[in-house]
Each structure stands twice: as C-alpha cells, then as structure tokens.
C-alpha cells in the first residue's frame, strides 16, 4: 500500500485557454443569476491532468500496452480528478447537451442541432423540427464542426502583418470612423446571405453613412439578375411537381443548400401515395441530380440554352403560349444537335402534366437561358404551383465588384471593409484584384479592414486583419431557403477571440460590441413582434427557428415574367461551339465550395461524389474527347482562353459531354493552411472573368507531357456484369407488376425462397448445425433504399464526425488506406460497357453485420465476435492486426490503421507524416472535436462500422435507468438512430430494432424490394438494400436503359426473365 506524496501539477495555460463551461458559453442572465443562487445543483468534472480530460481521450497507445498485462499499476501515472470549484448549471459530466442553431450560407441558412460534450460542440446535425429540411444535413453542415476546431484559423488581430491586441483595433476603428464623414470614402465588400440582424445594422449604417458603397460578391453565386424582378427568388415545390426537367440545375448537389433533397426524395419512393415523380436532366457532366434522373442527356453547358429553345419550340407548338413565342423570336433555327425524339417526348411529358411540371435552369446559366426557363414554366402554368416566389432582401449590392475595383484604383475609396469572402483569391481574374488592393493600401493610402476565418490571400494584403468567429461561436440569425427565420446561438466562446460580422458592423454602426444576444434580440423583437418576449425568445432558441408567419419572409409573392427581359431572349443564348473547340465550365466544388473549406480535412479526404477524387480537383472530360486528345487520367493539360491559362490534370468521367471540360473551383489555395492551404489541387480562378463567370466557349486545350498523381478512393467503376447480384434495379411498372422482382435475381435465382401469400420473403437457409441464439430483446438492423440515395456522401462525413475517424492524407489515400467506415460506391452501369451514356448508381457500403460473419471465425484472438443483439463487434484493444478479417470480408468494409493516424499530423498537401522521427501528437483543438464515447484507435488495429454502438449503449443504459427495478428495459422504437441514418438528406438509410414490429426499420424491411448482398454466401447480413426503382417514360428512346445492367443475366434464369424487360413508367 504505497503512500504517495501529492504535488499540485503546474496548470497548463494551453488547456485552460480552450476550456469553457457550458454555463459560460452563453454568458447569459441565467448564468449570472446562478452565481448568486445559494445551492446550485451540479458540477462538471475534469479528470486527468486538466488539459486532457478523460473525455479528451488520450490515445489508447501506452495505457493499452500496459493494461494488456494489467501492468499499469506498476508504473501507474498519477491522474487527478478536478471538479469545478463552483458547480455549473444543467451540466452533467459525460452527458451531451443539444442546442438548436443554424448556419448562414449564400444559398440559405441550414437549420441545425449541435451536440456539445462538457461545453465542446462535437457533432452537427439537421434540425428535425424545421419544416423544410426536416433534419437532413448536407455534407457541408456535417463538416462545419471541423472548421470550428481548425488549428489554422485566424487567431490574432493584425495591423499590416504585425500582431496587436483587439483593443488596439477597436481604438483604431474609432479613429477610422471619424474620417468616414458621409461615407463617400467608405466601401463594404460582403458575402450574400440573409440575416435580418445584419440587414438591420446595414440599414443603420446606410443611414449614418448614406454614400457608403455596399458590394456583395460570390464567385459561385447566380451570374444573372433575378428574372422575376429584383429581390424575388423562385422556390421549387418538389412535393407538387410530377415531371421535372432540370437544365443544368444540380438541385440535389451544389445548386441548393440541400434542404430540398428530402422534399424531392419523398416523391421518389415507389410506394408513395402520390406516385413517383419523373426527372429529366440535361447537363454536361454527371451531377448528383443527373445520377437520380430517369432520363439524362449529355448537353454541353454552352448548349443548354439551345436545348432549352428546342424544348420550348415543342412546348410552344403544343401550348401556343404568347410569352414563349416572344421569347423565342429570332432564336437560332433548330440545329438538330439534340436527339429529336428525346426532346419531343420530354416536352410532350411536360405539357401533359401542365401545372404539375417544373423546369429548372441552372443558376449559373446566362440570363437569357433563365428567361426561357421562366417562360417555359409560365407556359406550362407552373408559376405559383410548382414554383413559388418569395422576397429575399438579402441582396443589397448597389455596385458590382468590378466598379469597386475601378473606384479603388481611382482613389475614390478611403476605407474598404472586406467582411468574409476572399477577393484576392477569387475575384474575377480580369480585375487583377490583388495588385488593385496592394496599390490601394500602399500608394492610395487606403485602409482595408478584413474579417476572415483564415489569414488567407486577402489578409496578406490588408491593413487590418480581424479573426472571424465561427457561426458556432456567435449570436446571430439567418433565413433558410424557404425564408423561415433561423436563430444562430453560440455553443462555445470564440476559441481564438474572434469577432462575428455582426460585432464589427455593430461597432461601425456606433453600438458597443455586443456581449451577448442583445443585437439579435432587438431584431427578434422587431421582426417577430412577440407578445411575451422571454417566452418567444427562449422558444426561438429552443426550436432554432421562429414559427412560420412571424417575420419569416415566407409570404409567397406573385411570380411574373419580366417582359423587357423576355423579348429576344432566344437570340441571346450562347452560340454552338466551333468545330473541335472546347468549352470550359467553372463549377462550384462539391466539397470546398469556392475554396472556403479548403482547410477542412474531412472534406479534402471525402471523395468527390461523382469522380471519387480526393485531395485534388481536375478537369473532367468525356472518354471520347480524352481519346481524341490522347489523354489519360492525371495527364496535365494547359487550358487557355484569351491569354489566360491554367495547368491542370484531366480526369476521364463517363457520361460527360464531349468537347467540354468541367473544372471545379476552389483548389490551389496559397495560404498557410496545413490541410489544403498549399499544394492541394489547381486554381481555376485565373479563367474566371467578368464575361466568363461560368461558361468559357472556345477555350484551347494543349497537352503537356507531364503527369500529376490523382488519388481516388474507388479505382473501378464498372459493375462487371454483377448488377443482377449487387445493384438491383427495375422500373416502376415492373415493380407494380411483380413487386418481389428484385428478390430472386442473379445468383439468388437459384436459391430456395420462403414465400408469403405468393410473394418471396427470404432465402431458406439450410445449415448443418444450429446457430447459437442471438437472444437479446433488441436486434439491430438497417435498410438502405437505393431509389432515394443520391450519393451525396453526407453519411460519410457524419460517420467520420461521430466515430472519430482520422483522415490519412493524400499519399495514404493513394495507397488505398482511407478510413471511412461507410463509403458510397459509385458505379457507371450499363448493359454493355457503354461509357458515354451509362447510368450512375450509388450504393452506400458499410459493415453488413453478418449474423454468421466470415471475419469473426478467422480472428485468432477473438477480437471481433458477435453480440447477442446482432452486432459484429470489434474490440480494438484486443486486436493485434493480422488483417485476416479484412481479407475474408466479402464487402471489404474493414479499415486498418496502417499508421498512427491519430498521433501524427497531416502536413502540406495532405501528406501524412508517419515516420517515427516526425513530431507526435495532434492539435489540442482537433482533440476537442473527438466524440468522448468512442475510442480513438491506435496504430495496428482494425476498425469498422459499429452501427454507432455508443449510441446503442447509451439508449440501452437510459432505458435501464428508467426501468430501475422493473423489467421494462426495452428501448422504444426509433428512439435513436445511427449517425449516417440521421444525416441522410433523403432518408435512404433506416436503422433500428428489427425485432420490434413498431420500428420503422422493420416496416421498411417488409418491403418486397428488399434484398441482401451476396446472399449465396449465407453470411446473413443485417443490412437490407431496397432495389432501385426508376420511373422512365416508355416513349423515350433511352427508356430501355433503366435496369439493363441488372437484367437477370445468363446465370439468372428463372421465371422472372420475361417480366424484367419492362421499361414502362407510370405517367
């Protein structure tokens, strides 16, 4: 019994700096009042030396090696339990708290719910209560949590480079303000997003400085003025639309904030009462929307206009609509460039569903095309039905960024405030903003005040650099796409003492820098006009959004065509490409957007949904064009247009339009960021000019004889004739005719099927021996509906955030060692390996939790075994890493820690420094994101999807806590779900207790479409896939393509052969 002398350990500044109690986080009245209260309940507990709380999860490493022999006692490190001296209200150590908030974005705010552990936000999810998004959370929402903890975030106030105190800046700002006068020398460059409070402050400032210029710039925003009039935006109603024609509009991907996915998906469920909708897509590259299409046609982005006209002609012929006629006047004659019958039938379908159809034109298409789109909708009588208008006061750009550049040069501006954005990096190339700003600061003696998340390209050229607070650190408000009024509340005090945009604007408007929510509360009072403020306000914070009616800009406005624009719209559409000229399409990247998320490791490592490229961007090109130019993946090319040129590797993508290059923006950043700040991808902004913000017709492409290593997470996209086994697909009519058509396809055709009232239910499994009983009351299972999975990959990031999955860097991904527990397999499928017009099909792939799992029996140390509730569990601390289990897994879902991915840093260009000699340990902030309920795995152990076992255990425990001395410890149906299912924007993933008939998963599983992968192996997986159902138009030329790849092939045989050739849809 060893008596040990106790020494207080020195308190580490480091740890203290980040620690914020939940109470402090909203420095709220409650918190202060608590201080006076006499006997506050509660305490939060710090354990271990106070930097690394137990919940900060020291890596398993040493302690495990020791514990192996129960050695730890011999050299037991002295750990301390460090309770608060004063308890903190409603903080229970080790219990997560959930707060509703939202994330402003130029496409509309995202309603969110954030989980915080002991004051650390760790996980972001959608707000289930919100009527539009209904809890769906796109990739960018999921990944935002990592931005918060990005160690490379701007930490300091800087005056022309040198570090200063915030107070200095405040006084300097005061000085500056004196010189503003009427604001004639004052300019604000802001980002377009809606925030009532910001609008209020801007109004105040406009009053104070009437002459001040307000410019909003978004390199990836709409390029044309709104066609329904200033400040009016059109909102698609997918719940109403039966037939949708998307002209280069990726509403499931980058062109919407993501809220619409669920609305759309609801119409894609074959069993939906209203029946399935039908989606036609014309686009130059595969987008998520194109992947979901029933009929897709490859059209060069520059020809979308012409294509719209072709459709319009057909519609005009049918409807004789006057506006449409006006719009088409003088339009170029039909070139016959487009498959005539495709256009005809599509148009016919639109006309046939007048008032229930919907035509969407990509927001980046030129105005004329937008107008034609509007005219089409008008002609089809969709306005106000499937397309409703709403007023969005967000846009207050009086002067364009071009004009601003001119004024900077002319010296008419004295002080320029750049709030967010990054013009030096992404302003139109022809403005040469960098030198303009440099000159402005140096020669013109102007002052540039910059508020930004990172000290980036623009900061380097600014007089004042102000660190910007993350939305999770600030009070604020915003509006969702549908105009509903969302709250933004802080989860934690600014880690690096940053300011929010509101703080800065408030100062300029002459207020104090707000301490708490005052500003927003004022706005709230004005906007919502509540009877009882306190109640309304706390409800606002609790729900995360204000009840409909109140102040939210949801009141629909009349959508009317603008006659002025209408006339001659047809003339203005882009001309056809010259023979063997190329078009270049500059698109927003699915991951880093305009480049703002370049330093987010999760996003960099997340494979692009379509190309599966990670840690890079590339010029996407069609197979035939590639052959024509003699290009292979990774070959560097030089794309030049009007003396501007960039170098970039090409990547061949099936289904891409010919003579068209798609280049995602936002890469090739050149600031200090360690993840994506240097040497990741190629910057395409040099090609983005005022004239060519999106489309560049007639660019020249030159092949350089160099290669650039591109890394993909999926090397092989062809289905290899295994569609009948792996990816079962059919048409709606086929499904209606024979609902269980998907059961006995491929090898399962040979199996013996149990039937219930004439319908196949499941394969009869004959076994030599009786299996040990899985005798827990709960039995976990999952279903994945291939009909609604869009492949957005939100589940991958959600899983990464929930399960502490490390990123491994470009080099390691190149080796094929990425760690994602769930992946979205993307196949380009077609009957014959036709790479020009294939179907794009997604299949989320995760551990199938096989009841007789092949991985288990081969593990020599019993590190992976089965639990009574049907999980294939993995005990990391038992694993010795033989990798035998991974080899024997037919789905290859097991992931191995080839290196200590959690122990060493990712450095420039996403290179993981695995070498022993490289510095050890991760950033403190990065540790703060980790989920305390999941072990952080060490080098040399296998890991895989656990069905979020930490959530299962939590649910079980809370059920038991309630049960006390009763036996009612069964978890109620759908009490919780896995991270992937929770995140899925289209509810394609359902998880739950399959032994509970009430649970939604058991209901979905009952569907006749359900099938299991590789049934013939008899592994009895616990994941059921629901066959992909499409709703093609039988009259369309390409109707036969649907399900072609999964036609019961040679080995299929059986009675279903005949039936499965149906291609008919329901109309």
């Amino acid at each position, binding site marked *: 019994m060893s008596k040990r002398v106790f020494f207080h350990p020195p308190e580490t500044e480091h740890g203290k700096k980040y620690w914020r109690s939940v109470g402090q986080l909203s420095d709220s009245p409650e918190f202060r009042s608590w201080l006076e209260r006499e006997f506050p309940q509660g305490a939060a507990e710090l354990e271990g030396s106070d930097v690394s709380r137990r919940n900060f999860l020291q890596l398993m490493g040493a302690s495990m090696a020791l514990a192996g022999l129960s050695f730890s006692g011999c050299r037991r490190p002295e750990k301390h339990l460090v309770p608060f001296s004063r308890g903190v209200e409603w903080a229970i150590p080790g219990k997560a708290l959930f707060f509703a908030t939202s994330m402003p974005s130029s496409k509309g705010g995202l309603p969110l719910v954030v989980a915080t552990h002991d004051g650390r936000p760790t996980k972001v999810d959608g707000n289930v209560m919100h009527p539009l998004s209904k809890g769906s959370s796109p990739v960018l929402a999921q990944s935002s949590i990592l931005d918060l903890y990005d160690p490379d975030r701007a930490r300091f106030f800087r005056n022309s480079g040198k570090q200063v105190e915030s107070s200095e800046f405040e006084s300097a700002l005061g000085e500056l303000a004196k010189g503003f006068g009427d604001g004639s020398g004052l300019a604000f460059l802001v980002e377009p997003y809606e925030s009532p409070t910001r609008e209020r402050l801007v109004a105040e400032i406009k009053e104070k400085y009437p002459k001040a210029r307000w410019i909003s710039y978004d390199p990836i925003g709409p390029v044309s003025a709104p066609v329904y009039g200033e400040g009016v935006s059109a909102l698609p109603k997918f719940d109403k639309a039966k037939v949708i024609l998307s002209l280069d509009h990726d509403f499931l991907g980058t062109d919407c904030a993501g809220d619409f996915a669920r609305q759309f998906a609801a119409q894609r469920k074959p069993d939906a009462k209203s029946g399935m909708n039908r989606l036609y897509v014309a686009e130059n590259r595969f987008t998520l929307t194109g992947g979901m299409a029933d009929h897709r046609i490859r059209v060069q982005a520059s020809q979308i206009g012409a294509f719209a006209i072709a459709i319009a002609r057909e519609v005009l012929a049918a409807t004789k609509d006057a506006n449409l006629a006006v719009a088409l006047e003088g339009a170029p004659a039909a070139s016959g460039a487009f498959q005539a019958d495709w256009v005809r039938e599509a148009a016919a379908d639109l006309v046939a569903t007048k008032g229930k159809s919907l035509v969407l034109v990509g927001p980046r298409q030129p105005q004329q095309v937008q107008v034609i789109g509007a005219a089409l909708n008008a002609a089809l009588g969709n306005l106000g039905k499937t397309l409703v208008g709403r007023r969005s006061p967000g846009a207050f750009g009086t002067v364009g960024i071009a004009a601003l550049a001119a004024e900077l040069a002319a010296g008419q501006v004295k002080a320029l405030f750049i709030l967010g954005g990054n013009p030096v990096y992404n302003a139109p190339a022809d403005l040469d903003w960098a030198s303009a700003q440099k000159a402005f600061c140096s020669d013109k003696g102007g002052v540039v005040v910059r508020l930004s998340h990172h000290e980036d390209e623009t900061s380097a050229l600014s007089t004042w650099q102000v660190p910007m607070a993350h939305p999770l650190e600030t009070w604020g408000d915003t509006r969702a796409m549908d105009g509903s009024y969302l709250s933004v509340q802080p989860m934690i005090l600014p880690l690096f003492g940053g300011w929010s945009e509101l703080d800065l604007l408030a100062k300029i408007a002459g207020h104090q820098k707000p301490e708490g929510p005052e500003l927003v509360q004022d706005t709230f009072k004005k906007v919502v006009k509540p009877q009882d403020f306190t109640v309304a306000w706390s409800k606002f914070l609790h729900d995360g959004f204000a009840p409909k009616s109140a102040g939210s800009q949801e009141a629909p406005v009349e959508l009317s065509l603008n006659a002025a624009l209408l006339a001659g719209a047809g003339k203005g559409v882009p001309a056809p490409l010259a023979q063997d000229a190329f078009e270049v399409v500059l698109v927003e990247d699915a991951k880093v957007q305009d480049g703002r998320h370049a330093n987010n490791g999760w996003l960099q490592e997340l494979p692009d949904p379509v190309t599966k490229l990670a840690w890079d961007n590339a010029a996407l090109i069609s197979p035939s064009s590639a052959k024509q130019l003699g290009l292979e993946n990774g070959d560097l090319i030089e794309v030049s247009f009007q003396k501007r040129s960039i170098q970039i590797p090409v990547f061949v993508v099936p289904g891409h339009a010919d003579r068209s290059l798609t280049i995602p923006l936002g890469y090739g950043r050149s600031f200090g960021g360690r993840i994506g700040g240097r040497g990741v991808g190629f910057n395409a902004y040099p090609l983005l000019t005022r004239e060519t913000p999106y489309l560049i017709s007639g660019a020249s492409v030159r092949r350089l004889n160099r290669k650039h290593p591109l890394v993909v997470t999926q090397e092989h996209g062809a289905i290899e004739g295994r569609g009948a086994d792996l990816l079962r697909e059919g048409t709606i009519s086929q499904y209606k005719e024979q609902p269980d058509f998907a059961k006995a396809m491929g090898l399962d055709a040979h199996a013996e099927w149990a039937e219930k009232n004439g319908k196949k239910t499941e394969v009869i499994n004959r076994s030599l021996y009786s*299996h*040990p009983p899985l005798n827990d009351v709960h039995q976990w299972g999952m279903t994945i509906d291939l009909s609604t999975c869009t492949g957005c990959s939100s589940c991958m990031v959600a899983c990464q955030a929930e399960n502490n999955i490390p990123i491994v860097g470009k080099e390691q991904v190149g080796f094929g060692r990425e760690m994602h527990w769930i992946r979205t397999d993307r196949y380009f499928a077609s009957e014959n390996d036709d790479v020009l017009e294939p179907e794009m099909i997604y299949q989320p792939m995760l551990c199938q939790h096989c009841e007789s799992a092949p991985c288990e029996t081969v593990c020599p140390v*019993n590190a992976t075994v*089965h639990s009574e509730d049907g999980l294939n569990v993995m005990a990391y601390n038992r694993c010795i890493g033989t990798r035998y289990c991974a080899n024997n897994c037919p789905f290859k879902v097991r992931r191995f820690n080839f290196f200590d991915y959690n122990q060493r840093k990712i450095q420039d260009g996403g290179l993981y420094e695995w070498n022993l000699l490289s510095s050890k340990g991760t950033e403190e902030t990065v540790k703060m994101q980790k989920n305390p309920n999941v072990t952080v795995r060490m080098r040399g152990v296998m890991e895989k999807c656990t069905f979020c076992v930490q959530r299962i255990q939590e649910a079980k425990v809370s059920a038991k806590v309630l049960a006390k001395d009763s036996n009612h410890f069964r978890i109620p149906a759908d009490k919780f779900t896995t991270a992937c299912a929770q995140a899925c924007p289209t509810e394609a993933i359902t998880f739950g207790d399959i032994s509970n008939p009430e649970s939604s998963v058991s209901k979905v599983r009952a569907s006749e479409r359900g099938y299991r992968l590789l049934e013939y192996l008899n592994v009895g997986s616990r994941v059921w896939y629901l066959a992909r159902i499409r709703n093609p138009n039988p009259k369309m030329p390409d109707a036969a393509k649907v399900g072609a790849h999964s036609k019961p092939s040679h080995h299929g045989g059986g009675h279903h052969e005949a039936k499965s050739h149906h291609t008919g849809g329901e109309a």
Partner: protein
Amino acid sequence: MAEYKKVYGIGAEFNSAADLLHAAEKVRDEKFTKWDVHTPFPIHGMDAAMGLGKSWLSTPVLIGGAIGTLTAALLTFVPSWFIYPMIVHGKPFNWATLPAFFPIFFELTVLFSAFSTVFALLIMNQLPKWYHPVFNWDRIKKATDDGFFIVIECRDPKFSETKTREFLEGLGGTNVTLIQD
C-alpha cells in the same frame, strides 16, 4: 598408468563388423552380462548377437502422445466451450463442430510425442554422460570412426582379468587392453 587405479573392464578391437558380430555371439554364449560393443554405426543383427530384445522406447512415446491429445482437448474445449464461450461466426459449440479443433489436437499430439521420444532416449541411454571409463582407453576413439570394439566390464560375475583377456584374444580381438576406471 598408475597401478592403484580401479579396473573398469577389458576391451578388445576387431577389424570388421562381421568379425565383431561373430565375436559378440560367442561372448553372449559365454553368458557374459555386463558387456557392450562399440561401433561407428548400428550393426544389423547385433541386438540378437548380444541377446538384447527390441527396444521398449515406444511405450513412453505412446503415453506422451496420449497426454498431448488430452492437453489439446482441454486447452481448446475448456476455454472456448466453458470458460469463455463467444458467438463466433454463428457457430455453436457442440460435438458437431469438433473438427475445427483437430489441427490443434494433432499438432500437440506430435509435439508431446516427439519430446517424450527424445527425453526417453536420453534417459534410457543415460545421456548426457560426459564422463565414461571407456574413454580412458584411447583406441576407443576409433569407435566413432571405423573401429569395432568389445568391452567386458569387471562388474560381470564371470569376469576374471586373465581369463577374459585370453577369451577375447581367442575370439581374434586385437589390442586387448585393461581399461582403468
């Protein structure tokens, strides 16, 4: 050599395996018991010639092997069936799944038998025995090369220094020598 030394026995050399065999038969017929032949390799028929039966080494090996099998059975069953049963690959623990353990049964059986063979051999041959009186006779070295020897110990009741010497010489043994202990 020093006279006061104790006598171990008398050794004689023969010049071929055949001669040795015949000599051994004679010695056997003379009812000598405490004697032995030393040869560079086992001579076929020598056991008979010396009146020795079949080696009984196999008995301990059998026992060893049996113990091995038993150990394996306990080692595999007791933990995975009783101490710590787990659900692995949906396979039950009952006699039907016994074959999964056969490899380990087999290996341990062989291992144990091999060890018992070697240890039994050492014990039965009383090896290692680094010191032995016959080594005092220098010529015996050839026994590991190409020499063939008979050594009759003095512990033998029929041993008499003179008679035995004559007897061996009579058998055609050369270099008949008195071996000191």
